[in-house]
C-alpha cells in the first residue's frame, strides 16, 4: 500500500489536493484496520462459548490493529498433548488441538504468524514418552512451527529416537534448532543452530539454548551440549547483528539464567525462559536492556503472542492467550492423537516396557467383586459411585484412551497412579484381568487377594494371621493422622491436574462407606 501511494504521489500534478484526499483515503484504510475483528475463537465456536470463556479467562487482543507480524511462543508442554487433566476437559487449558485452531484463527484474520516453541515436549522417560515426543514433533511440524528448542527431558530420550523425530523430512528443513545442543554432536548438523524467518516484511532471527544449570542433568553421551554463553557468542556472529528486525532467544533454564543471557547478548529483544510459575504474567516484563522476558507457564496451557506493529509509539504488543475451549478442536490434531493412541495400543504394556513391579506390601489383588462378597454395603456404595465405571469412561472417549498407561493408572485396580505402571497382579487388559477393571476398593485399602482367600476358606490361616490381614486393609478417618493417610491416597489420582477442585470434605460423602464397619463393630 505504501509503495502504491508513493508512486501515485510522484505521478500526479496537483500534489496538494491529492495528498489531502489520499490522506483521507488512507485514514479510512487504517481505521478499517483498527476496527477489524481480532481473533477470539476457533472456527465454528458459538458466541455463547466464546463469551463464557472470555468471561472466565479474559478478552483477547483488545485494542490490537492488524499487526505486521505476530510471534506465537509456546513451550513446556510437559507431555500434555491434550488439555491437562482427564476430567472436565472443557474446564482445562492447553492441548495441541486448540493450539492448532488458535494459529489458524490468527492466520484467518490475515495476521502473518511465526510460531516458535521453547521445547520440553515431554517430561517423562520411557517408550511412551518416546512415542509421544514423535507425535508432538509431527504435530508441531504440521502447524508450521519455525523454531523448536530442546528441554532437558527431551534430551534424556534415546538419541536414536530424538534423531528420528527431529531430522529433516525429505526436502523440508527441520524446525528444531539449538545453539548449544547437537544430536550426535554439533558437527553432525542434524539440526541447525539458528534460523532467520521472513514474515510480514520483517526478518526474525531465532535460536535456542539449553541453560548451563540444566546441561548437567543430560546423561546422554550421544548428545553434545556446550556452554550456553560460548555457543551464543558463535551463533550471534553467524546471525549477523542488524540483519534481522527482531532476535528471539529460546532459553531453557531458570529465569535468572535467561536474564543473565539477555544482559550478555543484548541483540535479543525477545528472551523466552523456562522455569517460571504455572501461569505466565499477563504483561511481559521489560529487562534493563529493553528486551522482553517471556514466561510460558507449564503444560502448554498458554500461548504468548507478540505483535509487531509499524508504529513508532507502540511497536509491540503482547497477549497471554489461554488455550481454552473457545478455540475448539482441530481435526488434524485429533487424527494425530488417534494415531498416538493406536500406537500405544499396538505396543501394549510389554512394548511400552511396562513390566509389573512389586507392590510395597508384596501382596496381590483380588478385584472389587471379591470384596463385595462380604462388604455388601461398601460394595453398593462403590457400585453407585463413578469409581465403578472409571475404565468405561476411557473406553467411551474418542479416540479411546484405555490403551494409554497415563490414563489407565487411575482407572483400574493395581497400578501406581503417579508412576503409570502396573503392580504385580494388577490390571493388564480386559481380556486377561476383567475383574480388575475400574477404580476399585484395593486402590485405597491395598491388595486383598490373601485376605479374600483366607475369608473364603481357600487358604487356611490362624486367627492371628486372619486378623492381621484384616488389620492391614483397614482404614480410618477418625484421627488426623489416619485421615491424612486416606486423603493422601485420594490425592494420588485426584491431583491438581485431574481434579483441581478436589476437597476431601466435599467429595467424601458421595463415597462414604463406613456404615458397614459400624455394623460389624456392633
Amino acid at each position, binding site marked *: 500500500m505504501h509503495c502504491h501511494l508513493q*508512486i*501515485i504521489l510522484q*505521478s500526479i*500534478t496537483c500534489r496538494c*489536493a*491529492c495528498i*489531502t*484526499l*489520499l490522506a*483521507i*483515503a488512507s*485514514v*479510512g*484504510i*487504517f*481505521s*478499517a*484496520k*483498527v*476496527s477489524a475483528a481480532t481473533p477470539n475463537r476457533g472456527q465454528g465456536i458459538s458466541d455463547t462459548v466464546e463469551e463464557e470463556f472470555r*468471561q472466565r479467562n*479474559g478478552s483477547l487482543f*483488545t*485494542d490490537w*490493529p492488524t499487526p505486521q507480524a505476530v510471534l506465537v511462543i509456546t513451550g513446556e508442554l510437559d507431555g500434555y498433548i491434550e488439555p491437562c487433566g482427564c476430567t472436565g476437559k472443557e474446564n482445562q487449558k492447553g492441548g495441541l488441538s486448540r493450539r492448532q485452531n488458535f494459529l489458524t484463527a490468527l492466520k484467518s484474520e490475515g495476521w502473518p504468524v511465526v510460531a516458535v516453541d521453547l521445547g520440553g515436549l515431554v517430561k517423562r*522417560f*520411557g*517408550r511412551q514418552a518416546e512415542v509421544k515426543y514423535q507425535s508432538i514433533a509431527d504435530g508441531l511440524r504440521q502447524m508450521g512451527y519455525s523454531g523448536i528448542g530442546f528441554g532437558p527431558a527431551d534430551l*534424556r530420550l*534415546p*538419541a*536414536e*529416537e530424538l534423531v*528420528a523425530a527431529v531430522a529433516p523430512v525429505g526436502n523440508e528443513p527441520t524446525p528444531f534448532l539449538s545453539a548449544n545442543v*547437537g544430536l*550426535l*554432536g554439533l558437527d*553432525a548438523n542434524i539440526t541447525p543452530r539458528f534460523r532467520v524467518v521472513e514474515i510480514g516484511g520483517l526478518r526474525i532471527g531465532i535460536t535456542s539454548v539449553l541453560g548451563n544449570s540444566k546441561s548437567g*542433568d543430560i*546423561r*546422554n*553421551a*550421544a*548428545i*553434545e551440549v556446550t556452554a550456553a554463553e560460548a555457543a551464543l557468542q558463535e551463533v550471534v556472529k553467524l546471525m549477523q547483528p542488524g540483519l534481522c528486525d527482531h532476535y528471539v532467544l529460546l532459553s531453557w533454564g531458570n529465569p535468572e539464567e535467561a536474564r543473565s543471557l539477555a544482559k550478555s547478548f543484548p541483540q535479543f529483544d525477545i528472551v523466552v525462559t523456562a*522455569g*517460571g*510459575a*504455572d*501461569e*505466565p*504474567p499477563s504483561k511481559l516484563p521489560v529487562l534493563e536492556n529493553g528486551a522482553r522476558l517471556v514466561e510460558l507457564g507449564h503444560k502448554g496451557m498458554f500461548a504468548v503472542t507478540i505483535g509487531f506493529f509499524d*508504529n513508532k509509539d*507502540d511497536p509491540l504488543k503482547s497477549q497471554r492467550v489461554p488455550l481454552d475451549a473457545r478455540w475448539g478442536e482441530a481435526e488434524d490434531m485429533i487424527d494425530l492423537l488417534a494415531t498416538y493412541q493406536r500406537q500405544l495400543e499396538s505396543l501394549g504394556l510389554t*512394548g511400552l*516396557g511396562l513390566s509389573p*513391579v512389586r507392590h510395597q506390601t508384596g501382596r496381590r489383588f483380588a478385584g472389587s467383586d471379591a470384596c463385595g462378597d462380604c462388604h455388601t454395603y461398601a460394595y453398593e456404595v462403590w457400585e453407585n459411585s463413578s469409581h465403578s465405571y472409571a475404565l468405561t469412561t476411557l473406553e467411551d472417549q474418542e479416540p479411546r484412551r484405555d490403551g494409554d498407561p497415563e490414563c489407565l493408572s487411575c482407572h483400574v485396580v493395581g497400578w501406581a497412579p503417579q508412576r503409570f*505402571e502396573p503392580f504385580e497382579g494388577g490390571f493388564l487388559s480386559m481380556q486377561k484381568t476383567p475383574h480388575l477393571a475400574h477404580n476399585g476398593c484395593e486402590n485405597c485399602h491395598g491388595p486383598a487377594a490373601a485376605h479374600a482367600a483366607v475369608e473364603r476358606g481357600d487358604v487356611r490361616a490362624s486367627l492371628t494371621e486372619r486378623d492381621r490381614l484384616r488389620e492391614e486393609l483397614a482404614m480410618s478417618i477418625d484421627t488426623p493422622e489416619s485421615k491424612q493417610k486416606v486423603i493422601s491416597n485420594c490425592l494420588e489420582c485426584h491431583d*491438581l491436574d485431574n481434579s*483441581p477442585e478436589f476437597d476431601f470434605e466435599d467429595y467424601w460423602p458421595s463415597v462414604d462407606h463406613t456404615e458397614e464397619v459400624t455394623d460389624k463393630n456392633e
Partner: protein
Amino acid sequence: MKLNLPNPWSVAIIAALLGSLTGSGTALLRATTTPLRTGAFATRSAKSSGPRPVAQTSETTYNFGRVSLGGTGSHAFVVRNAGTAPLLITKGTTSCTCTVSDFEGEGEGKNSRNVSAGDEIVVRIKWTGKGEGGPFRQSASILTNDTGRPEIAFSIEGTVIPTWKAEPNGIVMSGISANTASQAEVKIYTFSDQLPRLKKCRIADDSFADRIGIEDRPLTQEELHDEPEAKGGFLLSIDISPGLPLGMIRTSVEASFSLDEEDITAVVPVEGIVSGDLMLVGRKWDRTYNALRLGTVSSQTGLNTKIFLTAKGEFRDNVRPRVVDIVPEGLNVKIDPPSQIGGGDVVRIGIEIQIPPGAPPANNLCTKTAEQGYILLETGHPSTPTLKIPVCVAIAE
C-alpha cells in the same frame, strides 16, 4: 514506473471512496484527530457521556515472597471509585488455587458491591500453597461497570518452599553401556530449621542391589547455597557397575530420613536404557523392528539418505566399519570417517546410503514374498566383528 492517471479529482474521488468503503465515516473523522488506537476512542467517548464510574487501583500484582507448602496467604487490593457515578464491582474468575473473598462491608450480596463516587472497597484474594513447591502465579479478576476498565485482573505470585526437594528429581541414564561404569549424584535439600537425620538409603529393586551402590554424606554449606532457603540436606552418590542386563532400567533410590519428628521417604526414580556398544541412529532407522525402512524408491529419481553408527565402550576407537556385502545391488554405501561426540565417550560414523538414478529394479520390502535386503559391515569391534543392517526397500522402474 509512472502511472497514467486521468486527473487529480478522479484520484481524489477514488481515494475518498476507498476510504469510506474500508472504514466507517465515524472512525474516519475520529482518526483524523486522534492517534490510531481504539483504546483512545473508548476513553474519549466515555468521558464525554456525563457522570460515570472510574475504577482506580494502586496495584494489580502482589508478591508473597517465599511461603511454606500448605500455607495460606491473602492480600487486600484496594479499588477506588475516582468517578462521578456509582461503581458496580462483581467477582470474576480465578485460577486454580486462589479465591476472591466475599466483599467486605455493608451492601447487597456477597459477590457484588456498589461503590459510591470517591469511596473505595477492598478486594481480598486468598491463596493456598498446593503442589510440589516452586514459583507460583495465580490470578483473579473482578468485573466493573467502568467502560474504560470493564475487567481488572489481580495477580499474586511468589515461591512455595517445599518440606524437602531432590535435585535432580530423577536420574535418567540414556544409552549407558553395559560394559562401562556410570555415576550420578542427587542432592536432597531440606528447608526446616531442624537438620534431617538420614536413616536408610536403598535401591528399591533388589535385583539391582549388587550393581547399583549408594553412598551418602551431609551437604556442605557451599552446596546448600545453591538452593535458596535450604537449611540442610545430604548428597547421594550413585555408582553403577558394569554388567547390567541390556534393556530398560526402572527403579528408584529411596532415602528415609526424619525431619521435625516426621518420617519422610524421598523416592528418586532411576531410569535408563542399557545398550550394546554399537547402535544405529537415523530418521529411516526403525528401532522397533530393527530395520532400515527406505520404502519404494523410483529408479528414475533415486534416493540419498544417511544413518549413523554410534560406538561406545572401551573399544569405541577400534570401530572402523567396512562394507562386505550389499543386497540389493542397486544400493551404494559410503562410510564417513569416525568423529567423537562431545567429550569423546561416543564415536559417530556416518553411513550414506544412495540409490542412484538408473539403479536396477529390486524388491526387498521385508514382506512374506520379498526378502529383506541388508548391508553387511565388518566393524573392527572385538565382540561384534560383523554387523548386518536389515534394509527394507523396493526399487521400482
